[in-house]
């Protein structure tokens, strides 16, 4: 019963390297799981925001797995998903869970433990 709908996003080959990117992001591979419920507006927003953040911060070293609970409700139990959308950072450990459509970037970064790029500015 591990039939999950996957959407793997790959980062564009060329990307302006950000010298001040997080050191964590440079070293490790990120596994992210986004739990959604169908194509609801919140779910779509979350995916859009997530992709944006990953492209900016993770330089290709990431994989996003989208799990649609409407199709596989039993999977909610594994990660104890109550809120939709929920983003779970599987790797690197420790597991981090954040809820919401990720429109608050600062909070998202804090939740994912990604340092903001600009200490003074907000991106």
């Amino acid at each position, binding site marked *: 019963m591990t039939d999950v709908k996957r959407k793997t996003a790959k980062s564009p080959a060329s990307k302006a390297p950000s010298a001040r990117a997080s050191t964590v992001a440079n070293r490790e591979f990120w596994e992210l799981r986004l739990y959604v419920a169908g194509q609801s507006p919140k779910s779509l*927003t979350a995916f859009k925001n997530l992709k944006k953040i990953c492209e900016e911060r993770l330089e290709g070293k990431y994989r996003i797995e989208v799990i649609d609970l409407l199709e596989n409700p039993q999977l909610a139990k594994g990660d104890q*998903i109550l809120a939709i959308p929920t983003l779970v950072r599987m790797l690197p450990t420790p597991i981090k869970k954040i809820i919401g459509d990720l429109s608050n970037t600062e909070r998202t970064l804090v939740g994912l433990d990604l340092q903001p790029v600009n200490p003074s500015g907000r991106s």
Partner: protein
Amino acid sequence: MAKRRNTVKRGLERLTKLPTGIRGFDEITGGGLPEGRIALVCGGPGCGKTLFGMEFLVHGAVDYDEPGLFVAFEETPEELEKNVASLGFELKDLERRKKLIVDYIPVERSEIEETGDYDLEGLFIRLGHLIDSIGAKRVVLDTIEALFSGFPNELILRAELRRLFRWLKDKGVTSIITAEKGNETLTRHGLEEYVSDCVIILDHLVRENVATRRLRVVKYRGSHHGTNEYPFIIGDTGISVMPITSLDLKYGVSTMRVLSGMPALDAMFGGKGFYRGSSLLFSGTAGTGKSSLAATFTDNACKNGETCLYLAFEESADQIVRNMRSLGIDLEPWVKKNLLHLHTFRPTLYGLETHLVAIHDLVNKIKPKVVIFDPISNLITVGAPSEVKSMLTRLIDYLKMQGITTLFTNLISSPNYLEETAVGVSSLMDTWIVLRDVESNGERNRVLHIVKSRGMAHSNQLQEFVITSEGIKFRDVYIGKGMVLTGSSRVVQEAQDKADELRRKQDVARKSQESQRNRKVIEAQIVALQAQLESETEEAQRFTEEEQLKDRISTLERDRLSIMRHSGD
């Protein structure tokens, strides 16, 4: 142009109630919880909310074949299973048979960062999936307030809770939501606003060193319900709520009579004894013989093959048996034959309600014809008099409905209050006998008298009795010379009376003898006089005869002379 709506006349929708299987609760609510609706159960920690929900599901699965879902936000399934295993609920077995699902959903604040708009659709999906997987008809969410600690955005949370309750109703399941009791509001987070169909409060008070649990139905939309606080206990088989059973005092009565084993006592009741199913009260000060009377009654009932349940609140069973031997009553054989069941309760050990339930259980198991409570005065140490009376009312009602004859002994502290009972239960009793010590001439004697006995004629006399080694013996009280005496005064007086009587008899005898002698004397006199009379008569006769002779002789002489004179010329 506005289209005219066809208003369909809707008949009054009758609210169907789903039986919970929780003892006593379905009676209070007239059937159980509202079907297809949401009931809120709130209370402080340890009040029994989780157990209430669990019982609702277990009974639903076992007794009514309705699968259930238990969503635990605070306890793990293992903890839950352990907690209810002692009540005989085999959760694992029910889960195996797909009659129950216990789902643990931990909600931890520290884990969750809120980054924008969200909803709790995940919860809905999860619940929906579980409900559909076994076709659950009953759902318990324990405790919904855990969500508040997990999701700090109250606006979203409250909106979602409202949505959740609507969703549950639409799903057609009957749900119980548990919540913590709040300080000013009913629940800490004001959930009662959303759940308006049925609200139940549980609490757990400690009063006078005894803990009592109580349940109250605060709201039950669409149904009338008992609004009182009902005490309940959590016993061996789960929650037991004890409502006052016969609210309309309806129970069949018997006209059969039960003898007490003491003919003199039965005689005070017109010779036929007490009605079966009636309640008897023996009250008196210490040492007046209440327990002895009760034991005699018991002995007699057992002799007639009737099962008895003797509830001792003061003495141990062994002590009672031993003490009654000195009366010549041997209760041991009845115990062996299972006709007599002696149970000792230390009143202060448990709350009143625990006693009540324990007694209920015993009665159901043993099915006695007679139940003896010796004494009930101890129960006041466990609760306020009004509570004790309430408990006894329920108990007596229950026993009367079963046609069980009940006998109570009650200790009175002071002879001045003989015709009051400390718990005011005399109004519940059909027959009331007061035992007293009468003091006179430096000693105390036992008497009893009947204060009341509903439905039969009874004596109003004081009856003296003694407790001998051959049981209780009744003595007729001395009534004579306008006095009532008992004890040695009676004995003295009776002896006096005997002496008096003897003397009188002797007097009579003597007089009669005297008279007889006199008569003899007179008779003798009469005989003498008679003899005299006879001799006098004889004498008189002789005299007369003599005179007659003389007369004849003189006549003859005269004649001779006359003849001689005439012939001489």
